[in-house]
């Protein structure tokens, strides 16, 4: 491909990412399963980058999981999105940034639908008025929160205390980047790099010193499946898809996985535990798993923040092998302390998955 032609192709996948003054739309899943990640994001925006962000107590779920598991109609989801935009209007904000990849897909789909079907926008306005008495105008820009960290990756690097480099060998850490499907597969032009070559996480990894691994099932879904995960007897769908990815990436010996999607982070972490306990199969070295981190957790480590203030103790796959490689000091005795160093015990040990370098038993 000639250079000019290549430039034209990539022009399609350049997106506008707002500089400052954000309205923050939170994620149901992330608040529950990786509850420090959104706090880290807010700290980075406010304390590291010096930007302003509005965290609204009045927002609710976007209903994304309910919509994709089909218990609510699209009209419901569009009207809830309209209510969130109304809240953003009241806060005098215009840049709507979204923590969840499912929500990012939802808001993108809603706004595209209104753009192409103005009669549906009018119907949504009527629904919102009837239900709440509210009016709204749409955001000027919507972006995913990983877009914001991508945009400011260089500024984060300037303040880095650690890089994604193996301290013993001096070589870049080998990283699997997993992008949530709804970040760019529905609307490729809304993701940095599009759906086939998304660069949002790869850009962070490369900038912070790591090396991105390409592997055959790189773009395969983590297997959430919405209803399939919620329904216990269908959960094998989710497990099987995750296993497919791990079997595919194993030979490339990743040091860790970085994700930008709430469900993916969770599934890639927890299904490793299940595979270890069911099949005695582990994908890391010496019985450990491959650590799975959100991009905020990775940014927090790069910035030198205490790993256990980042919530890394809530991962089932131990992150300490990664901390060792990066040369980050930690005291494993502090890992499971509660607030104000309260002794709250520690989780039981898995049977097969190794989670500590020490002797692993409950005695």
């Amino acid at each position, binding site marked *: 491909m000639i250079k000019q032609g290549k430039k034209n192709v990539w022009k399609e996948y350049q997106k506008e990412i707002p500089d400052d003054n954000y309205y923050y739309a939170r994620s149901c899943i992330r608040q529950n399963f990786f509850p420090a990640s959104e706090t880290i994001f807010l700290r980075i925006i406010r304390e590291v980058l010096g930007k302003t962000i509005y965290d609204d107590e009045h927002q609710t779920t976007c209903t994304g999981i*309910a919509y994709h598991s089909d218990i609510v109609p699209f009209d419901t989801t569009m009207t809830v999105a309209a209510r969130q935009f109304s809240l953003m209007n009241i806060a005098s904000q215009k840049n709507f940034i979204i923590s969840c990849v499912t929500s990012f897909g939802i808001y993108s789909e809603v706004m595209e639908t209104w753009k192409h079907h103005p009669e549906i926008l009018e119907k949504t306005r009527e629904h919102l008025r009837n239900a709440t008495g509210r009016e709204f105008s749409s955001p000027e820009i919507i972006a995913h929160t990983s877009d914001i960290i991508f945009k400011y990756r260089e500024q984060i690097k300037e303040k880095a205390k650690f890089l994604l480099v193996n301290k013993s060998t001096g070589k870049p850490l080998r990283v699997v980047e997993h992008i949530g499907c709804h970040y760019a597969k529905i609307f490729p032009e809304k993701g940095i790099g599009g759906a086939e070559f998304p660069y949002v996480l790869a850009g962070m990894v490369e900038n912070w010193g790591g090396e991105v691994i390409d592997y055959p099932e790189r773009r395969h879904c983590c297997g959430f499946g919405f209803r399939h995960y919620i329904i216990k007897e269908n959960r094998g769908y989710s497990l099987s898809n995750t296993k497919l990815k791990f079997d595919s990436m194993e030979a490339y010996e990743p040091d860790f996985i970085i994700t930008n999607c709430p469900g993916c982070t969770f599934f890639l972490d927890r299904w490793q535990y299940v595979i270890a306990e069911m099949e005695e199969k582990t994908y890391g070295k010496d019985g450990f798993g491959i650590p799975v981190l959100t991009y905020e957790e990775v940014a927090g480590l790069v910035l030198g923040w205490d790993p256990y203030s980042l919530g890394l103790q809530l991962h089932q796959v131990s992150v300490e092998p990664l901390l060792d490689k990066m040369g980050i000091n930690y005291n494993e005795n502090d890992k499971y302390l509660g607030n104000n160093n309260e002794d709250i015990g520690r989780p039981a040990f898995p049977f097969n998955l190794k989670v500590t370098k020490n002797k692993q038993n409950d005695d």
Partner: protein
Amino acid sequence: MSQERESLVGLLKQDVLYQEAVHACINCGTCTAICPAARFYDYDPRRLISDIQNVNEQELVEILKSDIIWYCGQCLSCKTRCPRNNVPGFLITALRSLSQDKGYFAASNEGNKQLTVKRIVGENIIKYGYCVFIDEIGTENHPEQGPVWEWYRNNADSILKKLGANYKGEGPGTLRRISKEDLDELYNILKETKALDRFDNIERYCND
């Protein structure tokens, strides 16, 4: 014309998701090749898109009563790859909506499982304003959560405070309590947009 609009086929074609989903399929099978559900279920999105283009009323009833429409995992990988801009994943949403609105979903084993989804996600939304909430996620139904989750849930107050969350607290923050006024607005939206009607349908038609 009005008779056609009221037919099942007519209703399906009025759905904006159907309109965005179905264009001229060339039966290339790319959607099936990329589909995670096709890999693990007896599911073929190529065939579904192909069949739906000239489906008649009786054939559509059979589709709405079948397990087939419930296998898709909604990853929407099909949207990226289809060379003709068809979106089997959007078609699935339109078919599932129609199936639930008309009560056909309860004829299939997979359709019946909507009761579980409604009772978990639907009721979380009404009660908490979140699709999922830590208080409702036990390891009995979610053994894959592992021992770390058990420990986290048993010590949620202390751990969440340490991590800067506002667990069930007033004001903004992670896992804050959503106020009654905000939950009431959300409930009114569910009612206005007929989500509550769908909840009722699911309870009425499904086998408990």
